[in-house]
């Protein structure tokens, strides 16, 4: 059995400015990221023959996904053999998995993958990404939540996080190590939006949003765009960067795909996604040098530490105690650029960008000092989960 992802690699990365309110349009930010990634891969616009994104244009003013495939393809006048976008995939990395499929099917050689968010600007005029839409009846994946004052992911996801707290016994001062460590990393990252270090006391004093989530457990809405180029391996090896191979992916949906009936409430849908990823590689959790774990909320990161197998079930509280293991100097540095909590809500693509930044040794003041070859990265959110193992060629 040959796994398609092993014939693909990330060859270039790009990122726009990331801010709490941009002077540029969402489309221009996307152009900045895309051109950066194409150039970084040693390619030109003419070399891009595929586009993938998650979830694609949402055609509203929420800022959640303002730029679809059509806009960026036309802006860059790209000539494509394949393109695709959609949200009903294993989280944000579904776009990467689709690109792997397209490359494996011979449909593309160099796929531009991007994620653009414009929530900072959108929120200046309204509660832009409210799960409740005024004046209309609610449809879609949160329909069963409609009458119950479920305004935001922070509240709805807390139903999962609070059960995790109940079962694991994790304490707030342990949870807070995620936010504190990531702010420290962000202080060394010039592109991060929040760079002033915080203490555990700051974390404990930050206001409660919905138990158990405090403000500093929540990621930061931004305006920004990230792009990566995923190339077929033979093409990748012609480029200027050492290819970052996609060693294995986890894309499964073995649970009930529901934000209510999910049959893995406290772990979210991660365990079997991780199991699939590890089944496609000879590498083991102990081989992982760094991890860029989804952190829309800090509990996602805590869940992934266990579900990737870096510690045992309900053992994350001990693993992150004191914060030393997960620090830049620790045995498993995580979210080394500050993550979504402090560098901004680039929605998993910030994590891929940081993974490549570290593996290519471009981390500057935040560069992890030990030799780096293997990074685990992930997405999360209730029934949605995706995982990748990235390896320097």
């Amino acid at each position, binding site marked *: 059995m040959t796994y398609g992802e092993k014939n693909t690699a990330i060859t270039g990365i790009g990122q726009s400015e990331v801010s709490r309110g941009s002077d540029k349009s969402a489309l221009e930010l996307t152009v900045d990221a895309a051109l950066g990634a194409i150039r970084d891969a040693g390619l030109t616009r003419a070399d891009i023959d595929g586009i993938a994104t998650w979830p694609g244009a949402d055609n509203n003013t929420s800022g959640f996904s303002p730029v679809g495939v059509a806009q960026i393809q036309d802006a860059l006048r790209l000539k494509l053999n394949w393109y695709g976008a959609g949200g009903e995939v294993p989280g944000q990395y579904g776009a990467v998995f689709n690109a792997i499929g397209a490359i494996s099917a011979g449909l593309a050689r160099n796929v531009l993958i991007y994620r653009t968010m414009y929530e900072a600007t959108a929120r200046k005029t309204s*509660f832009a990404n*409210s799960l*409740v*839409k*005024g004046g209309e*009846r*609610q*449809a879609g994946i949160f*329909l*069963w*939540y*409609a*009458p*119950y*004052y*479920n*305004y*935001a992911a*922070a*509240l*709805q996801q*807390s*139903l*999962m*996080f*609070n*059960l995790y707290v*109940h079962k694991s016994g994790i304490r707030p001062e342990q949870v807070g190590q995620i936010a504190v460590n990531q702010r420290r990393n962000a202080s060394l990252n010039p592109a991060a939006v929040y760079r002033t270090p915080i203490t555990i006391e700051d974390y404990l004093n930050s*206001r*409660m*949003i*919905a*138990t*158990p*989530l405090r403000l500093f457990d929540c990621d930061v809405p931004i305006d920004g765009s990230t792009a990566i180029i995923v190339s077929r391996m033979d093409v990748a090896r012609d480029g200027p960067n050492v290819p970052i191979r996609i060693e294995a992916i986890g894309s499964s949906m073995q649970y009930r795909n*529901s934000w*209510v*009936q999910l*049959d893995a*409430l*406290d772990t979210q849908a991660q365990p079997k996604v991780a199991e699939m990823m590890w089944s496609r590689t000879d590498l083991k959790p102990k081989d992982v040098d760094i991890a860029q774990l989804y952190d829309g909320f800090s509990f996602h990161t805590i869940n992934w530490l266990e579900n990737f197998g870096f510690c045992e079930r309900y053992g994350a509280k001990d693993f992150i105690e004191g914060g030393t293991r997960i620090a830049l100097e620790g045995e498993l540095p995580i979210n080394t650029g500050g993550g979504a909590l402090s560098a901004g809500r680039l929605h998993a693509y910030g994590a891929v960008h940081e993974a490549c930044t570290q593996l290519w040794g471009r981390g500057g003041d935040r560069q992890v000092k030990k030799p780096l070859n293997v990074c685990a990265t992930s997405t999360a959110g209730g029934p949605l989960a995706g995982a990748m193992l990235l390896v320097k060629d």
Partner: protein
Amino acid sequence: MASTASGTAPPPRSLPVVDKDSQTFWTAGEQGELKIYRCQDCAYYIHPPVRFCPQCESRRVEPEAVSGKGHVVSFSINHQQWVPGLPVPYVLALVGIAEQDDVRLVTNIMNCPPEEVSFGMPVKVYFEQVEDLWVPLFEPDSEGAPRP
């Protein structure tokens, strides 16, 4: 939901789109009943409602009244005032029905101080009419036993 200290009314409850399968769930409260789809061949409860039994593949599925009793599977106490006039704190919860563990309902836990809501707490249904729908809500069930 309790009124605010200033006496202003809380925001109205948002309502779901209703279809031919979910109609019964959102309207049976008019008769004071909580109705869940049930397989007429193997007795399995199916929620969200669809006329297919994933246990035995029967298409003979009909809504049946359940006891209205259940327990708190998980909950969160919301403190953030997401919109003006929203009275906080309040409790968003998932409740498992007494008849079958894998039927969960989203709800608010009402008529109970938020700090007294607990995992496994026994609760019972009641209904609040909003426009043409009857929204199931849950409150403490003093006769029930907590789930471990």
